[in-house]
């Protein structure tokens, strides 16, 4: 539990920018440690606007995020994604429900609620962008069974 808490804290800080650092300020956390990123522009991107869903490239690809996620933080206190995508909220908000696989713990046992290991949505789900491949390639997704 303590490890999870520590992990959650660390990742929460990374994802959420806890501590309210403005874009120009040097990143220094609460205990005075300077970020190794320095003043990198890693989170100074402009989030993509809402747009139609780009089809997935291969089977079991985590679905891409078809909407802006500007200011959507995932912290220890609150997971903004789950405010709409959790099974309790999805019907009202019209958001895609979290898949069943997210309820399995690492022993593949089904839990009543979302498994904490799935807490950080953006480990797998990223905003979609129609990026052209940097290098030409002949990648083709494996065909589905029966095709």
């Amino acid at each position, binding site marked *: 539990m303590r490890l999870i808490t520590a992990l959650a804290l660390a990742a929460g800080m990374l994802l959420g920018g806890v*501590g*309210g650092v403005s874009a120009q300020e040097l990143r220094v956390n609460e205990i005075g440690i300077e970020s190794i990123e320095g003043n990198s522009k890693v989170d100074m991107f402009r989030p993509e606007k809402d747009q139609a869903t780009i089809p997935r490239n291969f089977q079991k690809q985590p679905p891409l995020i078809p*909407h802006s996620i500007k200011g959507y933080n995932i912290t220890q206190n609150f997971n903004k994604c789950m405010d709409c995508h959790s099974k309790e909220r999805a019907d009202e908000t019209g958001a895609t429900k979290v898949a069943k696989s997210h309820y399995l713990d690492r022993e593949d046992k089904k839990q009543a609620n979302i498994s*904490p290991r799935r807490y950080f949505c953006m480990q797998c789900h990223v905003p979609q962008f129609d990026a052209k491949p940097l290098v030409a390639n002949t990648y083709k997704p494996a065909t589905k069974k029966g095709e």
Partner: protein
Amino acid sequence: MMSLDKFTPAWVKRIGLVTVLGLFVAGIVFWGGFNWALESTNKESFCISCHEMEENVFREYQNTVHYTNRTGVRATCPDCHVPKEWGPKMIRKIQASNEVLHKILGTIDTPEKFNAKRGQLAQNEWRRMKANDSQECRNCHRYDYMDYTEQGNRAAKQHPQAFTEGKTCIDCHKGIAHQLPAIDQHIGKQNDGAVAISHGEKPAEAAKEEEKPAAK
């Protein structure tokens, strides 16, 4: 002096012209001073002169759209937290004397203490905004003037629906300016028993009863 005497009312003669003029000037000075004091305690610089505000809520707020955005129009603390109308403003200002007491007591004078109280403080403000139909939001954001075609897909869909259901801004837009307290979202055990967030489907009071200190 005779002609002026004729026009002077009896009560002025009784207390004297100089006293009347003195009272008049004192009235201006008092009312002006009152308003000046009111206005100077209604500025962001006043709010963040307390480190409790400057180091916690103000810094969090600097990452949000109400502080920095494309056009540079911004809201300051009192724009959202102090009513604009005279009556409600006076009531809020008098209630704020409690905040002065807790400043002296040092109730939230460290980040740890502040975060332990965050749930309670947030709920106070949610309750206030729910009660006045998010008046401070609506001072700038008016439903009637919203152009849904300019809004994102999700906003354009949700806004008309929520207005029809009679929801108010704060029902959905919690935590847009400051970090949220621990919220029980039924994910793992981390925030089990923390504040349950309401989206307008149940009254804020019901959510309050479920509150438990989330500090671990």
